[in-house]
C-alpha cells in the first residue's frame, strides 16, 4: 500500500474517534505513572464507565513529562475543554466521571490545567508556566497519542518522513541531515550526517543500524519515556537511517530494566510490519528493512557503541580501540550505524519539515532541542525539552520551579556519572554541546539533578565514582584501578581521614584517568571529581582541615543532637523510633543521644514532631556539648 492510502485510513479512523462526540479518558501509564499508582486508576475508570456505552473510551497513553504530578489523567471532551488532572487516585475517579464525563463540572479543584487537544502538534498546557519555556519536538506526541496504536501516530503525520525519504536518493537525505546540523544525542554530540556518511562509504553489501536504547545513567529516563510514549518516531527514524546508509537490518538495543519499553516497542514493530512499513518492500518501494529488539543484560558500559556490539555478539561488553569505528567495521565486522534513541527520533520530523525548520530552533552550532530528565531537589521533577541555547537558570527555575521547599540552590549536576556539578555562578551557561564542555561537564545522556545545601559535594562525587567503579568493565587499567583509588580517597575524605596531599593526588589521578582510559565512559568518570574540585574546593577543605561536612551528610563528621530547650520531655517519639536504643532521658527527662551508640540513621530527626523540631545535626561532631555527648556512667543495681 502507498503511504497516501495508509495515511488516509488512519486519518479516517482518527477522525471517527475524535469527531463523533466520544469522550476520551487518557491515563498516563508509562513506568513513572505506574510507579505512582496509575494502573489502579486505569482500572477504576474502566469500572466506572462500564454501562456508559460507546460514548466514552479509556486509553492508555505515555507520559507528558510531569513526573511530580503523576498519576495524570486527561479527559478530552469534544466541544469543550480537555482537562488534565493530577495526583489522581481511584477514590476521586467516581467524582471525575460524575462531574466531567457525565456532567459539565470540570472539577477544577482537582485539575492541573486545560489542554488544547489531542494529537495535534500544538498540544500543550498553556496555563502552566513550565511549558512556556519548552519547545516540544521529541515530546510532541508523548502523553497524547496512544503508543500502542500506530493509527494515532500516522494520523498526526507519522511515517510521512519515511514516505518522503523513500522518494529521495540517499545522498539527498544525507545532505538534508547535514544541513540540519543534527548532532548525536547520546552525549558526545558528533555530527549525525558525518557518521551516516562514513557508514555509507564503507564497503560491502551488508550493513546494520543499531538504535542505542541502553540508557544506563542513574537519573536519566528520556529515552525510556520516548520508547514508552512514542515508539513509532524512533522506528521511523531507524528505517530512514537504514535506507540512507543501505542497511536492511536494524536492532534496538534496550536495557532489560525497561520491560514496558520493550513491550511497547515490540507492539509498535508488529503494527509497523502489519502496515507494510517494515519488512519486504517498505511502502511498495524496492527497499526492504527488518528490525528487532535486543535486550541488554545490564551493564552501564554497554551504552558505549563498541561495547554494545560486543554484547550483541554474545561477549562481555568490552569496548574496543577505535578506529576502526563501528561505521566502518562494527557488528559481525560489517559497517554498523549506532545512533541514540533521540537522534533517530529527530530524523522523521526533519525530513517532514525540512532542515531550515530544524535550524530555526536552537543555536548555530547545536541546532534543535535538548531533552532533559530533571530530578533532585526541584519543585517540578520531570521531563523538559528546551531549545538548545536556553540557560541552565531557565531550566532550573523557569521549568523546574526552583529548589524544593524554598531550599538554597547549591549545584546542578548534568550528565550523570560522566558529567559534573556546576555552581550557582554558572547557571547562566547556555545549554549546548560546546558551552557545557567548556564548563567542564558534558551534555551526556541528559540527566539533570539539582542539589541544595543539604547535599554534600564530596559525597556526591563519591557516589558517582562508586557507580563508575562498579560499572568499570575492567579492560583498561586507568579506569579499573583509577576509579578504585579515586573512590578510596573520596571515601577517606568523607570519613575525616583526608589530607591536602590526598586532595592533590586525587586531582592528578582524575586527570590521568581522563587522558588514559580506553573508552569515553572511563575518560568521563573523573568529571564528577574534577568539577567538584574546581567549583566546590572549599567543601573539600572543610572536610579535610576542619573535620566538617557543611551539608551535614557525611556520617562520621556529623552528630545528631537534641536541643534541650526545645525537647518536650514526655513525648518519647525519638526514643521509640531509634533502632539502636541510643536515646535516653537525663535527670530532667530531656532526651539525649548517646553518640557512641548512635548509628546516624536519622529516624529521630524525622519523627520529632514539627512543633518541637528539637533534633538537629551538627558538624563537626565536636560541637556537641561534652556533658550531653554520652550516657553518664550509671551504676547498675
Amino acid at each position, binding site marked *: 500500500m502507498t503511504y497516501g492510502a495508509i495515511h488516509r485510513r488512519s486519518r479516517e479512523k482518527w477522525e471517527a474517534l475524535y469527531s463523533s462526540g466520544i469522550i476520551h479518558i487518557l491515563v498516563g501509564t508509562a513506568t513513572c505513572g505506574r510507579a505512582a499508582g496509575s494502573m489502579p486508576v486505569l482500572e477504576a475508570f474502566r469500572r466506572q464507565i462500564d454501562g456508559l456505552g460507546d460514548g466514552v473510551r479509556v486509553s492508555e497513553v505515555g507520559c507528558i513529562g510531569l513526573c511530580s504530578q503523576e498519576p495524570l489523567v486527561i479527559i478530552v471532551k469534544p466541544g469543550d475543554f480537555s482537562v488534565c488532572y493530577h495526583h489522581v487516585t481511584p477514590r476521586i475517579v467516581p467524582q471525575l466521571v460524575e462531574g466531567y464525563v457525565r456532567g459539565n463540572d470540570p472539577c477544577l479543584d482537582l485539575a492541573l490545567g486545560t489542554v488544547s487537544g489531542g494529537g495535534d502538534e500544538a498540544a500543550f498546557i498553556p496555563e502552566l508556566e513550565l511549558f512556556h519555556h519548552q519547545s516540544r519536538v521529541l515530546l510532541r506526541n508523548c502523553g497524547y497519542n496512544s503508543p500502542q496504536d500506530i493509527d494515532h501516530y500516522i494520523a498526526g503525520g507519522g511515517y510521512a518522513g519515511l514516505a518522503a525519504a523513500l522518494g529521495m536518493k540517499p545522498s539527498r537525505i544525507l545532505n538534508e541531515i547535514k544541513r540540519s546540523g543534527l548532532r548525536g544525542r547520546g552525549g558526545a554530540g558528533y555530527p549525525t550526517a558525518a557518521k551516516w556518511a562514513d557508514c555509507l562509504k564503507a564497503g560491502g553489501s551488508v550493513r546494520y543500524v543499531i538504535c542505542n536504547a541502553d540508557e544506563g545513567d542513574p537519573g536519566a529516563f528520556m529515552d525510556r519515556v520516548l520508547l514508552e510514549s512514542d515508539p513509532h518516531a524512533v522506528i521511523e527514524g531507524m528505517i530512514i537511517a537504514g535506507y540512507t546508509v543501505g542497511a536492511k537490518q536494524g536492532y534496538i538495543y534496550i536495557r532489560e530494566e525497561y520491560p514496558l519499553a520493550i513491550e511497547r516497542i515490540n507492539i509498535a514493530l508488529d503494527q509497523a510490519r502489519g502496515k507494510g512499513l517494515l519488512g519486504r518492500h517498505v511502502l511498495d518501494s524496492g527497499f526492504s528493512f527488518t528490525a528487532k529488539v535486543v535486550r541488554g*543484560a545490564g551493564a552501564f558500559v554497554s551504552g558505549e557503541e563498541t561495547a554494545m556490539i560486543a554484547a550483541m555478539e554474545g561477549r562481555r561488553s568490552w569496548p574496543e580501540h577505535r578506529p576502526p569505528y563501528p561505521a566502518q567495521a562494527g557488528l559481525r565486522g560489517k559497517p554498523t550505524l549506532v545512533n541514540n534513541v533521540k537522534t533517530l527520533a529527530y530524523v522523521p520530523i526533519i525530513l517532514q519539515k525540512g532542515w531550515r525548520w530544524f535550524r530555526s530552533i536552537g543555536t548555530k552550532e547545536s541546532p534543535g532541542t535538548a531533552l532533559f530528565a530533571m530530578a533532585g531537589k526541584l519543585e517540578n521533577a520531570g521531563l523538559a525539552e528546551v531549545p538548545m541555547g536556553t540557560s541552565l537558570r531557565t531550566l532550573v527555575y523557569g521549568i523546574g520551579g526552583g529548589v524544593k521547599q524554598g531550599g538554597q540552590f547549591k549545584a546542578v549536576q548534568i550528565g550523570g556519572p560522566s558529567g559534573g556539578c556546576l555552581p550557582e555562578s554558572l547557571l547562566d551557561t547556555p545549554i549546548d554541546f560546546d558551552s557545557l564542555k567548556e564548563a567542564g561537564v558534558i551534555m551526556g545522556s541528559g540527566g539533570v539533578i539539582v542539589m541544595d545545601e543539604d547535599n554534600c559535594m564530596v559525597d556526591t562525587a563519591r557516589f558517582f565514582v562508586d557507580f563508575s567503579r562498579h560499572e568499570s568493565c575492567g579492560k583498561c587499567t586507568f579506569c579499573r584501578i583509577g576509579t578504585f583509588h579515586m573512590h578510596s580517597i573520596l571515601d577517606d575524605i568523607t570519613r575525616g581521614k583526608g589530607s591536602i596531599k590526598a586532595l592533590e593526588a586525587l586531582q592528578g589521578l582524575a586527570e590521568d584517568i581522563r587522558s588514559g582510559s580506553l573508552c569515553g565512559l572511563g575518560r568521563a568518570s573523573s568529571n564528577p571529581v574534577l568539577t567538584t574540585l574546581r567549583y566546590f574546593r572549599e567543601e573539600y577543605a572543610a572536610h579535610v582541615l576542619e573535620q566538617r561536612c557543611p551539608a551535614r551528610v557525611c556520617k562520621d563528621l556529623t552528630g545528631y543532637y537534641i536541643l534541650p530547650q526545645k525537647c518536650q520531655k514526655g513525648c518519647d517519639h525519638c526514643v521509640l523510633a531509634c533502632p539502636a536504643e541510643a536515646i535516653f532521658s537525663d535527670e530532667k527527662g530531656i532526651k539525649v543521644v548517646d553518640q557512641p551508640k548512635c548509628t546516624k540513621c536519622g529516624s529521630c530527626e524525622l519523627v520529632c514532631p514539627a512543633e518541637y523540631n528539637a533534633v538537629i545535626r551538627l558538624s563537626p561532631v565536636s560541637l556537641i556539648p561534652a556533658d550531653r555527648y554520652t550516657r553518664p556512667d550509671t551504676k547498675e543495681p
Partner: protein
Amino acid sequence: MYSSILTASRRHHRHLIDVLQEIQSGEGYLSNEAMLEVAKCLGVSSATVWGVATFYNQFRFIPPARKPVRVCMGTACHLAGGQLVLEAMARELKIEVGGTSKDREVSLERVACIGCCALAPVVTIGGRTYPKMTPPGVEEVLVEVKIASGQDGAGNSSPA
C-alpha cells in the same frame, strides 16, 4: 533440557546472552547445570559462559526470593537519603545487602535506577513501588507486605 531454548539455529556463541536470558526468565536464575548445558550446546567453554554471565548485572546464580526487596540507589534517591533507607531495610530484615533469607522468602538488593526519580527515595517489593521512603517508614511497609520484621536471621546466606 532446554531444548526449546537451545534450538539448532541458536547454537552459536553470539546467542549466548539471549539463551541465558531465556533460561533465567524461566527458572529465575542460572544454575551450574544450566550453564554447563549451554556451554556444551553452543560449543564454548564453561569458563566463557561463566565469564559472560558474571559480567552482567542481570544474571543471578541462586534462586530468587519470593519477595525481593529492591532499594533504588539512583542519583535522586541517593540525594534524598536512599542509603539510610537501605541500611534500615538491612537492619529490619536482618539480611546483608545482596543477601537472601534462609527460607528464600525475602532478599535485599540495591538497584541502579528504577526511573521514577520524582518519587525518591523508592523501594520496590515484589513489583510494587513504595515512594518517598524514610527509615521509620521501612517497618510500616514490611508489616504491610507481611514480611516479618526482625525475623531470626541466623544462617542467612551471604551476598551472591
